[in-house]
């Protein structure tokens, strides 16, 4: 049996490249590179410095990819060597901070999703004279833990911004879809929505399994017939929810948090009513750049207060402008 299948597999392996030569797609696919790529801007003439960006990102999450791209662009301009690491598990994220200290970096940018776990190691960093900024999560504890500034969007405020907009448009029964049970930031978003629209309900799904997200959300919409809007807390989740709404034959509208190019397109097309963007690219860019600025001129942005990167609402009125940047992986 194995011999037979193996021979067949070998045959397919031989045939596929031949087909590849003759079966080119006329649309889509990798864009052909145009000549004369952007001719690289000026790089700062200050001494090369080393900055560690340490996040709690799970591997393979598009949101963090955008944060990282922002940080990379700032590093390229500021003559910074960027060390990017991440681990969703609190203890291991603390170890990554320790490793950055061991490598004698000139600055640390860190997400404070689990402040307790990072408290001690961040004290070591500041004791060693390494400047620290925080980003994305942990705005309320940032200063306490020794960061001189924080770049992020307040999740509760973002949730309330969505809730306010939904209330204005007359929605009464939103379903707020949380893709990771127990995630403080995501819970805060839905709590913010509920604060403005008391009829809001929460649905938990498993963000690692898109078919599961789709069928569970379909089930919810079939059961909760009075649901008039369903909210995804991440762009890939929201795109999946669109399919659930169609499957369930529901009349519910779709709203979202965060952004990517496909979602921006859906807003342009009118399939998604709006999203609230915390501008992750700016979080990555600003945290690296502020460390450079602190070194360059002793600047402390924010004056001890967090610098908010959001929430900004992207709806049909401004989506086409945003789309262009989203396609470049900036928004």
């Amino acid at each position, binding site marked *: *049996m*194995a*011999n037979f*299948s*193996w021979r067949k*597999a070998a045959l*397919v*392996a031989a*045939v*596929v490249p031949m*087909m*590849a030569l003759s*079966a*080119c*797609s*006329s*649309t*889509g*696919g*990798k864009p052909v590179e145009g000549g004369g790529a952007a001719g690289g801007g000026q790089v700062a003439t200050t001494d090369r410095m080393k900055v560690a960006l340490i996040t709690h990102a*799970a*591997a*393979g*999450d*598009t949101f*963090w*990819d955008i944060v990282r791209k922002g940080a990379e662009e700032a590093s390229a301009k500021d003559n910074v060597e960027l060390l990017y690491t991440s681990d969703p598990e609190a203890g291991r994220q603390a170890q990554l901070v320790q490793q950055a200290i061991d490598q004698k970096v000139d600055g640390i940018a860190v997400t404070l999703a689990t402040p307790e776990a990072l408290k001690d190691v961040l004290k070591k960093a500041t004791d060693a004279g390494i400047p620290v900024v925080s980003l994305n999560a942990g705005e309320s504890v940032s200063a306490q833990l020794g960061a001189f500034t924080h770049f992020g969007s307040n999740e509760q405020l973002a949730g309330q911004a969505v809730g306010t907009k939904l209330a204005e448009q007359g929605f009464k029964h939103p379903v707020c879809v949380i893709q990771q*049970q127990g995630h403080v930031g995501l819970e805060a978003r839905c709590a913010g929505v509920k604060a403005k629209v008391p009829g809001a*309900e*929460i*649905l*938990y799904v*498993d963000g*690692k*399994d*898109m*078919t*599961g997200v*789709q*069928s*569970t959300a*379909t*089930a*919810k919409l*079939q*059961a*909760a017939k009075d649901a008039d809007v369903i909210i995804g807390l991440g762009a*890939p989740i929201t*795109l*999946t929810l669109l*399919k659930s709404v169609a*499957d*369930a*034959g529901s009349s519910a509208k779709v709203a979202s948090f965060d952004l*990517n*190019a*496909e979602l921006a397109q859906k807003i342009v097309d009118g399939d998604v009513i709006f999203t609230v963007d915390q501008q992750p690219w700016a979080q990555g860019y600003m945290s690296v750049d502020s460390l450079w600025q602190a070194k360059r001129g002793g600047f402390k942005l924010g004056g001890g207060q967090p610098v908010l990167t959001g929430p900004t609402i992207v709806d049909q009125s401004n989506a086409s402008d945003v789309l262009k940047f989203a396609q470049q*992986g900036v928004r």
Partner: protein
Amino acid sequence: MAKTATLPPAPASAAGPRGDERIGRRNPLQTLLGRPEVGALVGAVVLFVFFALVSPTFTQPNALATILYGSSTIGIMAVGVSLLMIGGEFDLSTGVAVISSALTASMFSWYFSTNIWVGVLLALVVSVGIGYINGWILMKTKLPSFIVTLATFLMLTGLNLGLTRLIGGSVSSPSISSMDGFASARAVFASSVSIGGIDVKITVFIWIALVAVATWVLMRTRVGNWIFAVGGDENAARAVGVPVKATKIGLFMGVGFCGWILGMHNLFAFDTVQSGEGVGNEFLYIIAAVIGGCLLTGGYGSAVGGAIGAFIFGMANKGIVYAQWNPDWFKFFLGLMLLLATIINLIVKRRAELK
């Protein structure tokens, strides 16, 4: 019901007082109760009745279509995994292998701007190839499948992330919805069929077809006998001339094939694939097979059992949503449902074996 020579212990314990029980006709009810999936079947019925009582939505045709869809995405993989477990091995790399397959098809077609079907066929080669490599290493090294497939799981997780970023510059695959062949591939892997006004996902039919084929292979072919034999006692099987190596490698390749189908469904249902997905899903497939009566030690089980296991999981998962229970308790209820279903499964099986 065809009896395979190696189907263990139920027939022996069903010995009647007169004559040789091996050639005597058995009571059809006893034959049914001796089947590995019967406990799961009872569990499924109990769960179905329970949710039908607590939730008015649960039994509506639309809702059943959704439950079947949720079950099918686990069930398709559970077919391959059940057979593999009957053959005495299991595979931890299945969750991410599904995503590897989807990424292969998507990234290859996108990067070389080919017709999407080229990528789909390449993904088939890669998926079945991963199964072959798993099986080959296992047979070559004699290491436990836990270690071998754990290593594959880790390597695939890394490859999914690393290659996707290297090729596409992002951690999710680019959208391929505008490429040639997308519409036809979507029709094959991710369309719906309308039955009396109810849209049923095509994965449900693929799932049923796979279960039918797997059952036929297990019950009616020589290969089926080999699978039971290598799972029951590998050395004894080898001694009577069963091609142990080929059978086991073939089983891993079968799992790879199921992973390819599900991977293609993921890709064409959602256009893009995030490279970090799939981790943890391997346990769902194993859970489905175990609830369905496949023993973790091999040599016993059925494809239908794995399907019923997937259906139980799908019902519990979606039923909690239909019942509109407080979502804080979601995971707890899910665990409780699974535990109860498995216990009912056990009780029924023991009862059946005592008779």
